[in-house]
């Protein structure tokens, strides 16, 4: 009897959603699935969104943005955070929000503007009892379902500036190459310094000290060139170029708070750059962006030379300009 009722209930809920009926309570996020050790096959399994196109977040799934975003071939990003009811959020090292077990971060990458925008992939970070897990989902042509792509994928896309590229959806291990710290997966983006005071006030009910200090990308021209460039380098490079992470052996530490000039690359010789050096001697030559390996590698789109190594098939011209302006003024 109980089983029958349950099946009936599920059928009604499905009907209600597909018919767009608003009267019934919306489906809840699937907390059990987030906490389990499974690799859910589709994004829809989690119940993060009310619609199949992942446009309307379910209750508890909250959109956010970052002041300074990571460049991903010009993809438009839709970020959401989910924390189970009644759970506390802490603040950790570097102002990184500490989401409790059961939380999820959801980020969709899309290309194209307005109604013609097409979602390519959605990456989820799930906080399970034994740590964070990163999983990539790739959208179908109909934009009705995103399917787990453990091994990643290549998808042809056109960037906002009209360049046709082979866009790389990272595989599960590559997620960790950026999200790994001391061997464990961790969120990178939601740090208080890179979140707006207004959002923090509404979401946490408080604005922690040091919050909202990174300049906003769209304000970069007017912002202090050091602050903009250092924020850009922190967000785009420092997940690898810091102690304990993927590029620690380079000795280059591009975190926002690093103040040792040598560690951020000033007059620092490369260690294992290979042809990535471009025939240049130092990572950053003050006053001379053309002579700086950092700029040379940012300007390259070629595997083995290009930085970042992952998530980049095209050059971030505006980002390069930002960093050049800073180096020129050093």
């Amino acid at each position: 009897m109980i089983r029958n009722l349950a099946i009936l209930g599920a059928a009604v809920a499905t009907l209600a959603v597909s018919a767009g009926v608003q009267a019934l309570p919306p489906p809840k996020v699937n907390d059990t699935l987030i906490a389990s050790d499974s690799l859910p096959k589709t994004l829809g399994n989690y119940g993060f969104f009310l619609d199949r196109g992942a446009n309307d977040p379910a209750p508890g799934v909250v959109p956010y943005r970052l002041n300074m975003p990571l460049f991903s071939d010009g993809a438009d990003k839709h970020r959401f955070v989910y924390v189970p009811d009644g759970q506390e959020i802490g603040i950790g090292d570097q102002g990184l929000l500490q989401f409790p077990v059961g939380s999820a971060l959801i980020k969709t990458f899309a290309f194209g503007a307005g109604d013609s925008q097409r979602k390519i992939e959605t990456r989820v970070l799930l906080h399970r009892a034994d740590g964070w897990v990163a999983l990539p989902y790739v959208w179908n042509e109909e934009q009705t379902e995103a399917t787990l792509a453990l091994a990643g994928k290549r998808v042809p896309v056109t960037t906002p500036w009209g360049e046709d590229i082979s866009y790389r959806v990272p595989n599960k291990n590559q997620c960790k190459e950026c999200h790994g710290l001391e061997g464990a997966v961790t969120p990178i983006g939601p740090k208080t310094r890179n979140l707006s005071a207004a959002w923090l006030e509404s979401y946490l009910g408080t604005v922690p000290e040091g919050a909202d200090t990174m300049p906003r990308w769209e304000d970069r021209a007017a912002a202090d060139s050091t602050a903009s460039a250092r924020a850009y380098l922190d967000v785009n490079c420092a997940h690898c170029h810091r102690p304990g992470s993927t590029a620690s052996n380079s000795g280059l530490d591009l975190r926002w708070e690093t103040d040792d000039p040598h560690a951020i690359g000033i007059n620092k010789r490369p260690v294992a750059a290979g042809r990535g050096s471009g025939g240049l001697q130092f990572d950053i030559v003050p006053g001379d962006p053309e002579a700086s390996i950092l700029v040379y590698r940012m300007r390259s789109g070629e595997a083995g030379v290009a930085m970042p190594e992952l998530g980049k098939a095209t050059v971030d011209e505006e980002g390069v300009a930002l960093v050049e302006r800073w180096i020129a003024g050093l």
Partner: protein
Amino acid sequence: MIRTLMAATALATLASPAFAETISVAPGDGAQERLQEALILAEPGDEIVLETGRFDLTDGLSLDVDGVTVRGAGMHASVLDFSGQQGAGEGLLVTSDGVTLRDFGMENPKGDGIKSKGADDIVYQGVRVTWTNGPAATNGAYGLYPVESTGILIDGCEVSGASDAGIYVGQSSRITVRNSLASYNVAGIEIENSRKAIVERNYVTGNTGGILVFDLPGLPVKNGGEVLVRNNLVANNTTPNFAPEGNIVASVRRGTGIMVMANETVWIGQNMLYDNPTAPIMVIAYPLAFEDPEYNPYPREISIDTNQVDEGGTDPQFEGAQQLLAAFGGALPPVMWDGLEDPEMTTLMVHPDLAGWSVNLPEQGAGIESARPGPLDVGAIGQPISIEGWGAPEEMEARLK
């Protein structure tokens, strides 16, 4: 009672392979995704088998599961072909411990070949990395590239064409590199900022420099030393340097055999060195300016035992080479020292059978133009040093086939 215990032990021994799986991956359509998926879904103890054939790959592969073996049908039979690589900084990245890589080849990765970082107790056996177009500055930097790891055993591997070092071990300890062929790279084998390394029975030929033991400033792991270089054949390392400028190996002179830069406690003995016409054996201080206050730029306690060496530096790549050759009677003696030392330490000890010369530079960072060349005047080697605890841990040998 004894019998019961033995039975229990036998069961335990059998139990682990019984649970381990063998996952076979064939070349062909979708190889990128199929192979990467196998690497992701592997469980500790599993074996991933690369079937015979060529795997056409577009993106770097990675392995992050402890205790996995990746093996092919031979270094020329199962080939990971990265000629069409579009992304990632290396062909294969390993970030887990206890991994064994065996019997496969890799060709033309756009960056490094196989990088293992923070990957302890890793075995590379019978693995080949080749840039098939020969030496070129456009080739990737390192062929085999273990870094920030403890326990590295490289045996029977081959690397050719690397624009930096064929086999490069950096910022690591407990290292063995042996029975391997490093040819037509800028540096054949390089041990950098590392401790407790044994480099033995390798054939190192056709490179710009054969075997380099370097210690560099400003790195997270520093103070390299305790390196034994013995029983290697280091011959005909005369390829012009093709490293991109900016890399420290770009300064290595064509015709360098075994070269020590900075470092503490290095023993070089029983090698055969032929046709390394700049210097069969070179010992120098770090030549560039540096700011790292913890860094010692001088070589300390470098012992050069008997080695089989030809006449020495017959075609040295230095300014003023002709005058030098005339002064030394047609060839520079086999052991070259820049003459710089830490006054608190013994720099160099050389077996009396080996002749040498000193550049006699006046100070660290000075250029060759300030040289005052003269015969080498250093003490003879003393008692053999203990190499207890050097090389890959003994128990790793059991994983060799």
